[in-house]
């Protein structure tokens, strides 16, 4: 069992974590036609926007209620109302994702009451779902805000769909895609699920909105992602697969609400973990074709082949990864996924630094993990062969003369963050090659 320590410092030096509202906004961006709306002062939104724009190299639609000192003291109702009306007019969104910030949480705006009275005053907005999530900046990190937003997305009532769209030929599976997944990862997951003849309803689906593609029109709301009409179909799913431990709450909510059973897959890299995912899909799809639960699971040939390719890649790369000491500073879910894969390749997890509490931290393949910052990483990383963290780790990696592999948010100094895929058999292979190449380059 891993011991979890929290640094005792009064100051975070070179922070590793980003704010929960940023995480919530990111999750909202995986819905189609949405504008995430920060209830707070304008700077929070500007910073979040700059970070996401630089990471994804995409235009990112984010809005703010623009609270000032005076309106904070008076309460935010008027600003929220005005912001929503302005957005409806300018962006014509299908959905609004409303999230709080440290400022408005400290002030203690009663959001339920505010939303209720806005609803009463504006029956013309009845068509417009407002997904609300409370994300005080001073509680948790990006992963927490993201998970809370996913939970709000599935908890919100979207009304019944118009007409009988219910008879889709394919059986539907809900995929809760945790913050450990990039848009490229989600794309891969969708492709895998579809290969089993299933219809994935991914929440959130960043692969349609920030994956880096050219649209024909300028967008002031998200151009892709999971649509409102898909959200209205949530109830139909046969099963929920939640990827990342932090997705548990959302999966549980779906179970309470619709009785949908779920399974948590805490990671989706590495031979065993991907096997498990495919086996699960095979069982679900076999269930649909077969009323008597006669078990005839089929794995598409393509993935059987990819599996053998991965096994080969594991053989080729283990010379370079075996015995290597790796220090990682990542959010809990991504830390778990990445460090287990390294461990399974014969590398040693030298140390782990993370951003926030999570039950999964106890199960890391190392003795100790610190909830801390990049200064902590700098103190414990010496002696390791590789550092894995976001772009902010560049200067400490340089200082310690240890190579850096970039993961997490933000990545400013690498291209392709929208399409990079590191999950599934294919993604695992990519990861192993990336890391192996780093060591080859160094001549180890």
């Amino acid at each position, binding site marked *: 069992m891993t011991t979890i320590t929290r640094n005792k410092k009064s100051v975070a*030096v070179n922070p590793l974590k980003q704010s929960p509202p940023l995480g919530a906004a990111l999750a909202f961006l995986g819905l189609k036609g949405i504008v995430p709306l920060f209830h707070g002062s*304008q700077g929070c939104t500007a910073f979040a926007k700059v*970070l996401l724009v630089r990471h994804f190299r*995409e235009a990112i639609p984010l809005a703010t*209620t*623009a609270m000032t*000192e005076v309106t904070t003291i008076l309460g935010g109702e008027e600003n929220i109302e005005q912001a929503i009306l302005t957005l409806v007019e*300018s962006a014509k969104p299908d959905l609004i994702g409303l999230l709080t910030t440290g400022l408005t949480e400290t002030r203690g705006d009663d959001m339920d009451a505010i939303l209720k009275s806005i609803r009463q005053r504006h029956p013309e907005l009845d068509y417009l779902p407002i997904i609300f999530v409370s994300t005080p900046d001073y509680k948790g990190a990006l992963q927490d805000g993201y998970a809370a937003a996913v939970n709000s997305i599935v908890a919100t009532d979207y009304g019944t769909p118009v007409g009988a769209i219910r008879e889709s030929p394919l059986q539907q599976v809900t995929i809760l895609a945790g913050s450990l997944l990039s848009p490229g990862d989600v794309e891969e997951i969708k492709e895998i699920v579809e290969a089993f003849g299933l219809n994935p309803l991914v929440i959130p689906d960043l692969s349609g909105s920030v994956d880096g593609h050219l649209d024909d029109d*300028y967008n002031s709301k998200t151009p892709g992602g999971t649509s409102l009409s898909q959200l209205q179909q949530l109830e139909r799913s046969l099963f929920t697969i939640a990827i990342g431990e932090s997705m548990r709450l959302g999966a549980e909510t779906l179970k309470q609400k619709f009785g949908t059973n779920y399974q948590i897959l805490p990671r989706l890299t590495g031979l065993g973990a991907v096997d498990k995912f495919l086996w699960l899909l095979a069982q679900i799809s076999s269930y649909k074709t077969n009323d008597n639960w006669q078990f005839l699971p089929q794995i598409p040939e393509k993935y059987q082949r990819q599996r053998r390719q991965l096994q080969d890649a594991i053989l080729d790369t283990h010379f370079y990864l075996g015995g290597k000491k790796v220090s990682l500073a990542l959010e809990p879910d991504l830390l778990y996924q990445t460090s287990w894969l390294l461990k399974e390749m014969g590398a040693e997890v030298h140390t782990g630094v993370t951003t926030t509490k999570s039950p999964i931290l106890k199960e890391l393949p190392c003795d100790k993990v610190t909830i801390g910052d990049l200064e902590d990483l700098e103190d414990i990383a010496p002696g390791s062969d590789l550092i894995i963290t976001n772009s902010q780790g560049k200067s400490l990696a340089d200082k310690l003369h240890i190579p850096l592999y970039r993961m997490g948010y933000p990545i400013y100094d690498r291209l392709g963050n929208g399409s990079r895929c590191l999950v599934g058999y294919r993604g695992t292979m990519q990861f192993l090659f990336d890391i192996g190449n780093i060591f080859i380059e160094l001549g180890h």
Partner: protein
Amino acid sequence: MKLTKGKIADLLNEPGCEHNHKKGQQGKNKACTQQAKPGAAQGGCAFDGASIALVPITDAAHLVHGPIACAGNSWGSRGSLSSDATTYKMGFTTDISENDIIFGGEKRLYKGISQIIKRYDPPAIFVYSTCVTALIGDDLDAVCEAATKKFETPIIPVNSPGFVGSKNLGNRLAGESLLDYVVGTAEPEYTTPYDINLIGEYNVAGEVWSVLPLFEKVGIRVLSKITGDATFEEIRYAHRAKLNVMICSKALINMGRKMEERYGIPYIEESFYGVEDMNRCLRNIAQKIGDEALQQRVETVIAEETAKLDIALAPYRARLKDKKMVLYTGGVKSWSVMSAAQDLGMKVVATSTKKSTEEDKAKIKKLLGKDGIALAKGNAKEILRVIAKTKADMLVAGGRNQYTALKARIPFLDINQERHTPYAGYVGLIEMAKEFDRALHSPIWQQVRQPAPWEKVASSPALKDSLP
């Protein structure tokens, strides 16, 4: 500096700022006091502005007192470069938790300061208040005062919670902190009659390094850079300069005006972009502080540099001639970039006047000519509309609009903070010309605009006759 309503109102009504000198009107122009609009606002907060102005001080530590939102999402992303210390690049924040909000964050702040001193021993720490810590009433000034005494290191409060206003106001709040706590607290080793300060130049992409050699060549000494690539020490003795040169920015105008009041240092406003502006800048400085000899040296350098420049620019001028751009950037930068573009023979067909003062607007109008469009407001959609209408060849704007242009398959050049190429001075103009040329004449534009063969319904398949 205690942050009082009066103080903020004073800063908003800063008399040095022409925003407040609207002709025939008492009171102020909207640009400074305008409140952000819910649902439409896109700009940064006062804390953002304060850190833009102060973080370039390279050897100081910058400690943000607040929850993770303020520093966590922004540290390490400023484009200012340093020739020496790197402390400014580190992110320090008290990262307050719910407990601190209930019991107050002052203790945590004090302990945080002590930790930074112990481990990094910087010559000074700037401490920024933010929305939450201001709302719960943490007394930043008191903590900083106590810490300054205890640790015998200047610990400087910057009262810049985001909710008091825009980036612009934040710049000025930063200026106030420098005036109240830094300028005038030390003496330079020696002074010369040719000492100047550069104010409002943040050494983005190393720009100040393109102009310092010019000053040196003519015999002007830059005493303090406020704040691009500055040490804390050099700002302390800024009050001994003979002239303040405000660069491309109304942002720290309060510093210019108050240093004139307190120390009798006159100030002038200049720009480093484009030949005309650079020439004018050197001439104006020489005229203000110089003797005949200095003025002569300036003329010689100008003649040399422009001759060299004409040769270097000739090929670019030919390729850039009559290319049309839409320029979308704030305040003074609009006209300074416009004059640089015109030096290259390009045309600015539309530009923003949103953050511009009346004086700037007049300059812009003159440079735009009668067909030019002055954009009073602008969001991404509006910008794209104007580009389409004017048939502009490219967009020149801040990084935040980069993807507005690229997604519309329009060439783009970044002119703001996060860029990596220095455009200041004579060499900067060559860089700018190269960048314009690269952006406009890249072979990619044709590819990203080209429809797929199967989208061109009219054309017949090429293989039609060679297939069975």
